Each structure stands twice: as C-alpha cells, then as structure tokens.
C-alpha cells in the first residue's frame, strides 16, 4: 500500500466519520419529522403491544403494596384544577348533583351519582403509579371495577374500546377538542385492577388527583389513568374521535399502548 493511497483513504474515512457525526447530531432532528421515519419508529409500538398482550394473562396483576409503602407526597401531574364552569359548579357542591354517564355501544345507558357508584361493589388496591416522565408514586385507591359498570350497562359484543371523556381542558383550547380523553382496550377494561376510583389514601378523591372519579389502569403508564372522568363510552373504533389516536397525549405522539 503506498502512503499516498493510504492518506487518501484516511482522508475519505475521516470525512466519512465527520459526516456521520454531523448527521447523527444534527440530522436526526429533521429525520424524526419525516412521516416515513415516524411510521418505522411507530411500528415498534405494535411489536411491544402484541408481545405484551401475548405475555399478559387476565390474571397477571400489577404489584400491590402495603400501607407502609404509600408515598408521602403523591405528585399530581397534568391538570390539577379544571377551569370548566360546569365542573367548578359541581366541585363547589361536593359533586352532590353530578352523575357519571355510561353510553355508546351498550344495551342500557347509565347515569349514576357518586352515592350510587359507592353503593356498588368496590375494589381497594395499593399500587404504584408510573409516570411516563420516569417517576413513581404509591397510592391507595378505592373504586368501582370498570367491568361491573360495563356489565351493568350491558356492553354490546361489537364494542372494542372504552373511551373516557374528562372535564379538564389540558389542551387549553377553550373548546371540547382540548379536553382530556383516553381509551383502553377490552383486555384492560375488564382487568380486575381496572377501577374508577372515588377514594385515594382512604379519603374522598381530591381535586388535584381527579375528583370525582379517576381511572386506574395499573398495567400501563400514568397518562392512561384519566382524571375528572365525566363520561364513559363503549365504541368499536376511536378513529373518528378527535385526532383519532385514542387519547389526549396519544394525539400528541405518545403511544396508545402505554405498557412500557
């Protein structure tokens, strides 16, 4: 190998490495915004969902903790005090006249007060809340199993997802479109630990944590667990709701399947 040839090759390699470095540092940002790149990256969610669904049986429970494990400070994320006139009026009267609506693909739409929800069979669980940001808090939740509500409402066989409509306008658009919403599949909707909680740590659910009712889906991340739930709807598809991705954060790019 002549030294001139070697130097050329070295120059070529050095330029190649420099170009690769620049591409990696600066080039990935525009790359991230290419629709085809997004489609490829997003395909991992399907792989994760199918894999976890195959591994998760209905009897697999999220770990339950003891009273001693409760967080001293349970972080309230997202909305902490909905700025909605209807909601504020209900909050002022302790949700005495408030009713949860259950509708969509059901045989028997329901309209239930907090007292009626409290009169139903309840489940109490001490679980870990994992935020998508990375932190975890442990809290004690008491509420109605979602399965009991769906059975009472006689959910129809064609229903595939349960959508939760909330009172808080996290998008701050001032319209219905900015309001928080979420959806889960039937496997999670009928899971034993999936409840609509009206109590936290032995007390009436506080407003920062979603009063009067918040969803708990213990095998997924915190953003699935919608607060301020006003209405529950059984649907066969969420493609036509808002931006069609099944939730407030999902519409902004987060995974619909939040098991990881």
């Amino acid at each position, binding site marked *: 190998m002549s030294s001139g040839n*070697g130097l050329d*090759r*070295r120059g070529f*390699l050095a330029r190649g490495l420099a170009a690769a470095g620049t591409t*990696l*540092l*600066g080039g*990935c*940002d525009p790359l*991230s915004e290419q629709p085809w790149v*997004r489609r*490829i*990256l*997003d*395909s*991992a*969610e399907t*792989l*994760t969902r199918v894999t*976890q669904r195959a*591994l*998760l049986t209905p009897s*697999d*429970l*999220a*770990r339950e*903790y003891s009273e001693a*494990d409760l*967080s*001293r*400070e349970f*972080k309230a994320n997202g909305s902490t005090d909905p700025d909605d006139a209807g909601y504020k009026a209900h909050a002022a009267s302790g949700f005495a006249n408030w009713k949860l609506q259950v509708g969509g693909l059901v045989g028997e739409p329901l309209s239930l007060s907090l007292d009626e929800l409290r009169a139903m069979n309840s489940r109490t669980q001490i679980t*870990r809340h*994992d*935020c*998508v*940001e*990375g*932190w*975890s*808090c*442990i809290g004690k939740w008491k509420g109605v199993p979602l399965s009991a509500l769906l059975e009472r409402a006689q959910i129809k066989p064609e229903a595939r997802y349960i959508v939760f409509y909330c009172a808080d306008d996290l998008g701050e658009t001032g319209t219905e479109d900015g309001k928080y919403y979420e959806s889960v599949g039937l496997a999670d909707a009928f899971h034993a630990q999936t409840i609509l909680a009206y109590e936290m740590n032995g007390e009436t659910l506080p407003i920062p944590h979603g009063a009067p009712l918040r969803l708990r889906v*213990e*095998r*997924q*991340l915190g953003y699935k667990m919608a607060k301020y739930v006003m209405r529950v709807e059984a649907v066969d598809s969420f493609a036509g709701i808002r931006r069609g991705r099944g939730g407030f*954060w999902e519409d*902004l*790019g*987060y*995974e619909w399947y939040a*098991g*990881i």
Partner: protein
Amino acid sequence: MDARPTDPIDQGEVVYRHSGAVRATHWINALVLLVLLMSGLQIFNAHPALYLGSKSDFDAPVFAMRPMMHDNKIFGVTTVLGWDFDTTGVFGLAGDENGHDPRGFPWWATLPGYQDLSLGRRWHFFFAWLFLFNGLAYLLWSLGSGHLRRDLVPSGRELKHIGASIWDHIRLRFPKGDEAKRYNVLQKLSYLTVALVLLPLMLLTGLAMSPGMDAVAPILLDIFGGRQSARTIHFISASFIVIFVVVHIVMVLITGVWNNLRSMITGRYVIAPAEKES
C-alpha cells in the same frame, strides 16, 4: 520497546481476525447503542432525577440535574448522593442560542436535540427491539460457533498472569506476534463483561421499568429492588457502557487505528512482528 522490524515477513503477516457475524453485529450494536444512549438521555431529561426503591422520594433523589437559584443567579446543579456540583453550561442548565436552557443533559447529547419525550421514546423503543434482535443473534452465534469459548473465555493460565497484562497495559505495551492474534486477557474480560453483564442488564432494568412487564414477571422488581432502583441501575449500567466505549476507542486509536478499523470492516488484521527475545 525497540521493535525495529528485522524480518519483512513478520511485518506483513495478515490474519483474518473478525468473522462476518462479529463484524456485522458489532457495527449494528455500535449504531443501536448510540441511538439508545441519546434517546435515553432525552427520556431522562423528562425527569432528570434518580431514586432508590419502588417509588420516588422527590425530596431526596440520589442523583439529579436541575437549575437552582443562588444569590439571584441561576446555576445548573448536579446532585450526587447529597453533594451538589456546579455544572452550569453542561448539566442542569445548558447554554443554547437563547442563553439558558434548563434541562438535564444538553441538546447535543439527546435525540431529538430539542425536548420531546414522546419522540425520544419512539426512537428508544424501536432501537431497543433492534438491540434485542442483534444481541440475540450475536449471543446465539457466539455460543453455536464456539466464538465465546474459543475467543472470549480466558484460560486459567491467562487469569493467573492478569497482573502482568495490566502492567503491560499501563506501560502501553501491547502484544505482538502470535500473542496479538487473539484477544489478551483484559480484552476478554472487558468484552465478556459488556456482552454478558452490562448489555443484558440494560435490557432487564429497562423491562423492569415497564408496568406491563412488571405484571408479567414481578420478579423483575425483586431482582433490582423496585422500579426506581431499576431506573437508577439502568442509568449506572449505561454510564459503564459509555466508559467502556471511551476506553475501547482510546485503545483502538493507540494500538493502530487503521489496522483495527480495517479488521472490524474487512476482517483482515496485520500482526506486528514479535519482539526478538535475547
């Protein structure tokens, strides 16, 4: 140290050092780990603090990078086990075109460069699957072909002479002649530690952070002492891998960068002539 070549045949001996499988999985892994590191730092930046146990004790992180006010001035502070370090400009508060950017790791270390947790997660989990497939391919091939046993597991004799090998490395004296045809004992132990301990640890601690996987295999939580401990171990293990890569690259540079690079691209490696023992 006088290694004047006396025999031109010694000088030019070319051996086939790395198999195609090792070369392919090596470069895929290099790219995958770089993306995982940078997207991982993007995810870390969403809550740049680490804890021990199951839950986050927000008042007492074992590690944190955050902006703090002091004498009406803002600083980037990195906290390690209760000790505060001023890391303004890099960690906790980085400089950007707008002046000050309160974030854990600076833009050049994260993917994407700007703050976007959802995009960071998309990159991270897509490349985590590539990491898994590539790692499994490497491990299965290494077991099946005998690469692991033949090239990586050190012999008892080598382990006994590890002191001499360390002393040689300190003096920057590297094996020549026949000795250079195989990995030396320190290489073997570092590669084994990375391939069989640190990289699998990244996968397992990653899975332990998944609420879905925790329900599938609650033992993940017990192995690592809780989800927040798993997250901390994930970070520490990643740091060790970064240290390994830095040392690895330094060794590649000082033991003949073009020879090393070529051997990992084409497989061919030129053996330096053995020193004449007198």
